[in-house]
């Protein structure tokens, strides 16, 4: 009998066919999902169901994988996991795994595609939309309805930020905003009124900030002291609120046209551009920083009021960002950082139980004391009790800023190509910043590019 041999060519062909089949199978569309429930417009208060009643405790040891970008949260949340497991007599370990911010969505989507999603994961800003739009989270309303979980203590706008196309995908644990930090020593030395004092007098505006920046700038070369840091024209978190508070917006209500080149926006940019003589330029960005002691005023997230304590070589204080002199209004960025359940997680019920636990006022308070992460529950801002626990100067100022934020904050647009849009802004504005093109032209170019991108954008218009 003739034995049929496998030729090299056949072997290669078979291998290629197998690999192709595997790849195509992996690329096959996911089975149809049941449509998720919509977030109720008015969440009704309801009693919380105890964890034991909804999720039977696991008999075998379980590890909940918890992904987030902020590595300073690792220890506190692992500790929260221990407390939760002990209180509920669970054989569960919470493993907080920090993933760098820049790689977060990428790794999440890769894990999702590979069928190994984290059980719990952070979501905020750009990641919130990119992950939401790519179906990386389990819809939360089925869990919320099952347990009659009370959402009334969360600001509806923070919930909207955590909702993609009507599906609530994550719940906020924190609400950030930017503070205007300043070197107290520099102000005392120059005999100037501080931003906090101006704010208390109701006179803390862009013009005052500019004046202070000029007065605090001195010296030259490597010893130059800068009065202010770049107000962040290339960071949407930092800069978009200035456009809003000057009466401008990024797009029209129907998302058909970019408005970034209209007067209120141009004025906001012009104010930032006028600060250039008093701020470190791109060439100084590595050496002239507030941490190096050469910048006297700067903007950063509220959490850095605590986190920077050991990094800044002088005594520094916080004020809110200045208001527009035209409108007198101060608008804050909506940044409700949150936790969601990874799509397809093996331990969804346990993840949900731990998520609920981390959102209890007790857990949020423990986290706040360690990290200064302002909590997401509005009731925790009724007085400055928890702020007094912070090891910062003038904790009541910090609380007052946060209270003001609750009154006037806005969410960024929710669109799947927002990062691409902002990249266009960065490209054009960075050229204007170094005088390669006029600001107005740069903003016109940004508007043109945004208008093109709007055509293909997937937009959730219900952002605010």
């Amino acid at each position, binding site marked *: 009998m*003739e*034995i049929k*041999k496998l030729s090299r060519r056949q*072997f*290669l062909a078979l*291998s*290629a066919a*197998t*690999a*192709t089949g*595997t*790849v*195509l199978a992996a*690329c096959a*569309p*996911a089975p149809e999902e049941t449509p998720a429930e919509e977030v109720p417009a008015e969440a009704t208060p309801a009693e919380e169901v105890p964890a034991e009643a909804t999720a039977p405790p696991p008999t075998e040891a379980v590890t909940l994988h918890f992904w987030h970008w902020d590595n300073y949260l690792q220890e506190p949340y692992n500790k929260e996991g221990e407390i939760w497991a002990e209180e509920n007599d669970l054989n569960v370990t919470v493993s907080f795994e920090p993933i760098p911010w820049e790689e977060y*969505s*990428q790794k999440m*989507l890769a894990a*999702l*595609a590979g069928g190994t999603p984290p059980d719990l994961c952070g979501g905020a800003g750009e990641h919130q939309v*990119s992950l939401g*739009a*790519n*179906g*990386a989270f389990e819809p939360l309303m089925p869990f919320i309805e099952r347990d009659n979980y009370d959402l009334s203590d969360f600001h509806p706008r923070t919930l909207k930020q955590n909702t993609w196309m009507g599906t609530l995908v994550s719940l906020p644990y924190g609400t950030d905003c930017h503070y205007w930090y300043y070197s107290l020593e520099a102000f005392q030395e120059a005999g100037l009124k501080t931003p906090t004092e101006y704010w208390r007098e109701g006179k803390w505006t862009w013009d005052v900030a500019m004046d202070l920046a000029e007065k605090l700038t001195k010296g030259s*070369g*490597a010893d130059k002291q800068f009065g202010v840091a770049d107000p962040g024209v290339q960071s949407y978190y930092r800069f978009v609120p200035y456009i809003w508070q000057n009466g401008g917006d990024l797009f029209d209500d129907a998302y058909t046209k970019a408005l970034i080149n209209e007067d209120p926006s141009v004025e906001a940019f012009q104010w930032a551009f006028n600060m250039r003589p008093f701020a470190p*330029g*791109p*060439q*100084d960005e*590595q*050496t002239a920083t507030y941490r190096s002691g050469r910048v006297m005023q700067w903007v950063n997230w509220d959490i850095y009021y605590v986190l920077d304590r050991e990094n800044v070589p002088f005594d520094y204080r916080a004020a809110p960002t200045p208001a527009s002199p035209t409108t007198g209004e101060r608008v804050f960025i909506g940044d409700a950082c949150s936790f969601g359940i990874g*799509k397809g997680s093996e331990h969804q019920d346990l993840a949900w139980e731990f998520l609920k636990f981390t959102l209890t006022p007790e857990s949020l308070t423990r986290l706040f004391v360690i990290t200064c992460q302002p909590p997401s529950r509005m009731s925790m801002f009724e007085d400055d009790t928890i702020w007094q626990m912070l090891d910062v100067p003038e904790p009541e100022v910090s609380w007052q800023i946060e209270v003001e934020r609750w009154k006037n904050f806005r969410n960024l647009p929710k669109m*799947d*190509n927002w*990062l*691409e849009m902002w*990249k266009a802004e*960065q*490209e*054009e504005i*960075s*050229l204007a910043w*170094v005088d*390669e093109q006029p600001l107005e032209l740069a903003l016109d170019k940004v508007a043109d590019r945004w208008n*093109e991108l709007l055509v293909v954008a997937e937009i959730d218009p219900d952002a605010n």
Partner: protein
Amino acid sequence: MTQMPTSNLPNRKVRREAKASRLPLRLALDRPKRNPTRSSLSRREAIFGYLFISPWLVKLVVFTIGPMLATFVLSFTHFKLGSPIRFVGLDNFARMLTADPSFWDALKVTVTYAAFAVPGGLVLALLAALLMNQNLFLVKVWRTIYYLPAVVSGVAVSLLWIWIFHPEFGLINTALCFVGIEGPGWLVDPDWALPALILMSFWAIGNAMVINLAGLQSVPTELYESASIDGANSWQKFWRITLPMLSPMLFFNLVMGVINTFQYFTNAFVMTQGGPGRATLFYNLYLFMTAFRYYKFSYAAALAWVMFLIILLITLTIFKSSPYWVYYEATRQQRKKR
């Protein structure tokens, strides 16, 4: 003209075998026919052979050919994780060519970089190899120093060069300051960012230099001796002997240089992120951003295939041109024998 009887003609299989084995047809016809049933020894040998190469084959098929095929299919779709794939025909390619200014900018940046970095790198690698081929003091140490950048991680090199290019405290501007020149902003200046990266590319000539050095050391000394007897000067020896004998190495370095520069990514990713403006938006960086920042996997797949075709085209052109400028001694000797 008399027609040969068909029965006497070697069949197509024999002709193909003769062609494959590069034997004259007459010899191929004389070869004994192979036994259709293989001996168990040769079969075992074949099985083991495949087993030994299978890790590489599996890797090739699963991690290279598989993803390539997947991206090829993907490039004709609109794909989003968690949603069904939608076929869109040539839409991604049409958008790229007609409605995406970033694509053209990225291509322009990459081609400009390649146009300067590849020839510049080749010349410098050749000069360095000529220098390292001399009987210098501590020549082995010098060779190691020149080769060192080739083994240092791309990210580490980038961080080092960020400091070298620093406008205020950087090595280059400090040196320029000593001779009374105010250095440019390098990486923060849109006009200087790309030239800075081109300049930096010349630092990593170690690989090409070592290949050239090996080539130089294999040039028979008799050729130089004969040339000296004939009265050739140093330049004539270099132009008539060294360069032709080194041309296969230059050819290899050119091909690899073109492929590497068109795939340039790490330094731009770490040092400039494509900025200022779009001054250093390299093609691969744009591709990466499209896929992993903007999550447009299908469009990124189309971008990847266009880049593949561009590299393929340039590489084929270089290969086609090689008979005119690459000298292979073995080929010449074979020709002479015939």
